[in-house]
């Protein structure tokens, strides 16, 4: 029973990090309507970013965020300008192929730059655990969840209480209507892409403190994020958070009670099950093209 509770706590903590990375996907998909299959590779790059910063400066990866967040934001805008902008009006097939190609560029580019070895970061608190009621929780997961909660809270308040945030929601709800009332849609798209990459940057840095990174880890995260977004319901922030927690807890359970190697298989079964039973997800509205 203690182990069971432990698994649930760990699942919830990891789930928050997952929620953040899935939110990055959700923002880009929801606002730009872009189907991004290179999302996992952005996370991989963010993990390498955290790794490089702590390797070069010896800083804590989280402090590196002061450099990484602006870089991620600018990178998001640049990506929008040079690639996404051309894609969003093209048919969905083009999104899939182009971002899949991009994913390959990142994977093999990273392989050339960093070699295929597993890299990880050790911090002062890597080995520390927080102990209460017979439960042992390691600090990297706690800090990761904290960072995720802070960023998600910031993001939600940004989307609800600032004009730019409201404009983003307006554009994601109805692009033409937003254009008609004078919102600069391209600016909003660029900002949304930047925000998406910021979510990725923070989740990547959190992940590197408790997981090792290698160039081909991207597709795994990509799959994970899409499953979370679909499970929670496309476009719903609470749904995404809940979906992330469900997936993370399931991952812990499968890893502990069955076999760690089979978590990917469990995702797949789960994904097919969601699609067959309730393709709109927990909080989603029904898809138009059913």
């Amino acid at each position: 029973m203690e182990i069971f509770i432990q698994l649930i706590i760990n699942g919830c903590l990891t789930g928050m990090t997952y929620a953040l990375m899935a939110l990055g996907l959700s923002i880009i998909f929801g606002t730009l309507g872009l189907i991004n299959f290179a999302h996992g590779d952005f996370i991989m790059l963010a993990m390498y970013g955290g790794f490089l910063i702590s390797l070069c400066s010896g800083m804590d990866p989280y402090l590196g965020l002061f450099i990484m967040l602006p870089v991620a934001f600018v990178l998001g805008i640049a990506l929008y300008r040079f690639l996404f902008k051309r894609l969003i009006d093209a048919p969905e097939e083009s999104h899939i192929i182009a971002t899949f190609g991009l994913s390959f560029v990142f994977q093999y580019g990273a392989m050339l730059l960093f070699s295929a070895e597993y890299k990880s970061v050790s911090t002062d608190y890597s080995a520390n655990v927080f102990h209460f009621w017979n439960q042992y929780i390691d600090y990297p997961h706690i800090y990761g969840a904290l960072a995720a909660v802070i960023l998600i809270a910031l993001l939600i308040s940004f989307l609800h209480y600032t004009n730019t945030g409201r404009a983003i929601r307006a554009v994601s709800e109805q692009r033409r209507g937003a254009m008609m009332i004078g919102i600069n849609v391209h600016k909003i798209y660029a900002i949304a892409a930047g925000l998406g990459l910021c979510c990725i940057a923070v989740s990547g840095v959190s992940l590197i403190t408790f997981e090792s990174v290698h160039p081909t880890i991207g597709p795994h995260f990509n799959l994970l994020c899409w499953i979370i977004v679909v499970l929670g319901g496309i476009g719903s922030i609470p749904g995404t958070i809940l979906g992330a927690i469900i997936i993370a807890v399931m991952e812990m359970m499968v890893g502990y009670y069955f076999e760690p190697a089979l978590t990917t298989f469990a995702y797949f079964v789960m994904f097919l099950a969601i699609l067959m039973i309730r393709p709109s997800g927990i909080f989603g509205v029904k898809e138009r093209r059913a």
Partner: protein
Amino acid sequence: MKVTTGQRLQSYIKDPLVVFIAVLGILPLLSSHHFYLQMLTLVFLFAFFSEAWNIISGFGKQFSLGHVAFFGIGAYITGILYADYGISPWIGLALSGVFGILLALLIGFATFRLRAFFFTLSTIACAEALRVLFTYWRLGSTGLGTTIPAVNGLGNLTFSHEIYYTYLAYILLLTVVSVTYRITKSRIGYYLFATGGDEEAAKSLGVNTYRIKLIVFAISGFFTAIGGGFYCMYMRYIEPCMVFAVDFSVQFAVFAIVGGLGTIAGPILGSVILIPLSTFFRSWIGGLFTPIGFLIYGIILVLIILFLPGGLMKGISMMKDKIAQRISSRKE
């Protein structure tokens, strides 16, 4: 007017596609150099895979980026049955085809009623899941990888000389090309084009797009699984990370996209150009090629989508038009 066999034959001979494929059929006879034949085998085999992928993804616009799942299933069924149980690979190939169809139906049932990218996602997930599952199972009596014993003979699908494999791969290619050709000229094909063009419109005209997609995906899965079985007998070694590698899914897609999506000649053209090129670069740059090669494939995909969405076939037809224009303007 009834078309006689002679007339039909004549029209076939004039078709550039038929000429192209016939020329490919002569190529293996030009040299018996092992390296050359091996490259040709790969060209035919990948043209075959790419063509099979193209049926569902090119004509039907349902992008499968996990086609390697079929490939791996086929390779495993054929390989394990032969290596561990001594069952003839021909039976293995037939069984692979059946399992290919079943897997296609499973994915299709779950996703073909939804938006197209759900299908793409679940194919990727399926390939990943199978790779993990097969790594976990460690099928085969020799541990993770299984070596296929070499006992030459047609019954064992194992030959002493490369040229047999080359021509078998060529026959596979011919089969899939003729099936695709028949599909494009049939009712299913027209429905498929309509589905790929605009699914909502096709539905409103009474096309059962769900069924069409299922049938076509099953055909595609069937061929890919059989090809996987053949590949396993050709390479004589299988291992989960090898036969379920994403790299294959990408290659199937890249060759078709570069050549021209939704054309019969496109996938063949793509693999005829890209496989010799990659072989050349591999011998030139060496072991470093694999990452660079896939990096280049990625860049090619992005560039083609941005600048030449129809692939090389589109480029060729555009050039033809331009030349025709120039000739006609010169006449005036």
